[in-house]
Every structure is written in C-alpha cells, then in structure tokens.
C-alpha cells in the first residue's frame, strides 16, 4: 500500500524529477516510521492509516508545485542576470578583438548607426528589467498555497522576464547584423572565427534564457490551473 501511494505521489510530482525523488524518499521514511509506531500491530491496517493521515497525493503535489515554481522563478531571475552578463562580456570581447586586430569599421552607414542605437538601448532595457525582475521575485515570500497575491506577483515577474528576453533578443539580433556587416565587408580569414564565436555565445545565452522563461510561463499557468481544481 505504501509503495502504491509513493508511486502516485511521485507521479503527481513529475513536473520536477529531482523534487519527486527527494520527496519520495522522505515520505517513505515518514510512512514506515508511522507504521512502526502504530500500536495495533496490524501491518496492513497500520499502512492504511498512515497513508490516510498523510493526505491526498494530488493536494500535496499542488503545495509542492507552488514551492517548486517559486524556486524556478528565482532561478530564472538569476539566470537572466547571468545571461545578460555573459552576453555583455562576449560583446566586449568581440569589440576588443576588433580593436586589437585594427579591423576596419566597414560600411556601417545609417543602418549601422541605427542598429548600434537599437543595440545599446535594448541591452540597457534588458539589464534594467532583468534586475528589477530578479530583485522583485527574490524578495517575495513563497506561500504555502498559490494565493491570489502570489499569483499576481508571479504574473508581474513573468511579464518582466518577457520584457527582458525581448530586449536582449533585440540587442543580440542587432549585434548579429552589425557583426555580419563587418565580416562581409572584410576579406574572409580565420580571425573571423572570434567574432562568430562571440556571437554564438550571445545567441546561446539568449536562447537558453528564452527556453527557461517559456518553461516558467507554462508552469505558472499549469500550477494556477491545478491550484484552482485542488
């Protein structure tokens, strides 16, 4: 009976495999302890009582989902800052490389100037919204259940995260176009691999952040639905 209950609980927690494994181990110890402490000595009945006292696995999973979602939101807030910092370092490294190699600026023209402005503006918007979002979610206390107040806080954080990734993407795309203009204007050489590698790092940072924000948005919605039906 305990094994069957643990299976159901682990399945209900499959949105977070690491959490599911940990909770399963912890709950198994709890239930075995409860059975051992049962005064009746009837093993099967003791198991039934221990499981009944523990509660509905879906309700417990709903409570864990809020904790897990809160942790995920904080991780996304931190990841956004790391992604922005790494993208910034990659961009600075590329510009440093250009200066070191005394690369010609190339035919930038009005488009180039506009792209540089977009790049700068979008990058600082991403820094600002990312930082506000990270500080905002990190200072919120994760409640026992998904309260309307915490739901609204998560919603605000999701919006800030999307603003961050949209701005970072705009910055990275502008960087990409600027790099392409520069590389197309110059004769091809092995030295071009450095700017290309730095662009790849920027794209990877933005891509990974985009995926993690999308996952968090989906989980926020599914946890909200589960909390309403629990």
């Amino acid at each position, binding site marked *: 009976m305990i094994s069957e209950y643990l299976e159901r609980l682990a399945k209900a927690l499959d949105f977070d495999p690491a*959490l599911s494994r*940990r*909770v399963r*181990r*912890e*709950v*198994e*110890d*709890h239930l*075995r*302890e*409860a059975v*051992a402490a049962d005064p009746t000595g009837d093993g099967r009945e003791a198991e039934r009582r221990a499981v009944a*006292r*523990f*509660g*509905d*696995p879906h*309700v*417990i999973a709903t*409570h*864990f989902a*809020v*904790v897990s979602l*809160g*942790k995920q939101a904080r991780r996304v807030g931190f990841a956004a800052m790391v992604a922005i910092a790494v993208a910034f370092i990659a961009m600075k490294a590329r510009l440093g490389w250009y200066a070191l190699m005394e690369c010609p600026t190339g035919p930038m023209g009005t488009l180039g100037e506009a792209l540089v402005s977009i790049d700068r503006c979008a990058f600082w918007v991403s820094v600002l919204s990312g930082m506000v979002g990270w500080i905002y979610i990190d200072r919120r*206390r*994760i409640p*026992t*259940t998904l309260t309307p107040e915490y739901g609204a806080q998560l919603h605000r954080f999701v919006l800030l995260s999307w603003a961050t990734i949209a701005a970072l993407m705009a910055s990275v795309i502008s960087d990409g176009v600027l790099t392409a203009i520069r590389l197309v204007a110059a004769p091809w050489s092995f030295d071009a691999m450095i700017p290309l590698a730095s662009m790849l790092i920027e794209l990877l940072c933005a891509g990974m952040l985009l995926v993690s924000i999308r996952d968090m948005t989906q989980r926020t919605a599914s946890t909200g639905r589960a909390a309403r039906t629990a």
Partner: protein
Amino acid sequence: MLKGHLDMIVLAALSAGPAHGYAVIEEIKRRSAGAFDLPEGTIYPVLHRLEQAGLLAGRWVTADSGRRRRVYTITKRGQRELDERQAVWEQFSDAIRSLTKGRRPWRNPA
C-alpha cells in the same frame, strides 16, 4: 486560520532541536495536545519552503533502521523569524483577549 501560521508552528516545533518530518509532526501534536491534527503531508511542503528561504537547514542522515532521512535544523535566521512572529502573535492574542474579556462596557454610539 491554521494555514496562515504553519510556518510559525513548524519553526516552533524545530526550536527544541533538529528533527525529521515525522518527529516534527509528532512534536506539533504533542505540544498542541492534539489540537493541531493536520494532514501530515501538508508539513513537508512547508519544510521544503522554509529550507529554501534559509530559515531551516536540512541534511540527509542514516537512521537506525538503515533508511535515509532528512533532518531539519532551525537556522539563526529562522530563530529570529520565529521570535518576530511570536511577538506579533502575542500582541494579537493579548488584544483579542482584552477585546473579548474586557471589563469596559461598550458605549452605545446612538
């Protein structure tokens, strides 16, 4: 009403010393003389959340039975949080007691 005070209840139970989930629940039942008979599973998300918030520290140990179990200890931050919540609760409790058992008769506003 109990749900709103689960954090304080769990922190208070752990203020006596480190304990695993089952022992925390038993301590809550014992100290409340059975008044707080919660579904036992509701305590674990609270333990995880308090650990995440840095109010508890958890570590895996091997019990005498050979099973692995997670033991929680209240941190200094957790103890400060408990002290603050207890102070607020005592103020609230005193105010309610004064209100419900107060000697001053209510004045008719009319």
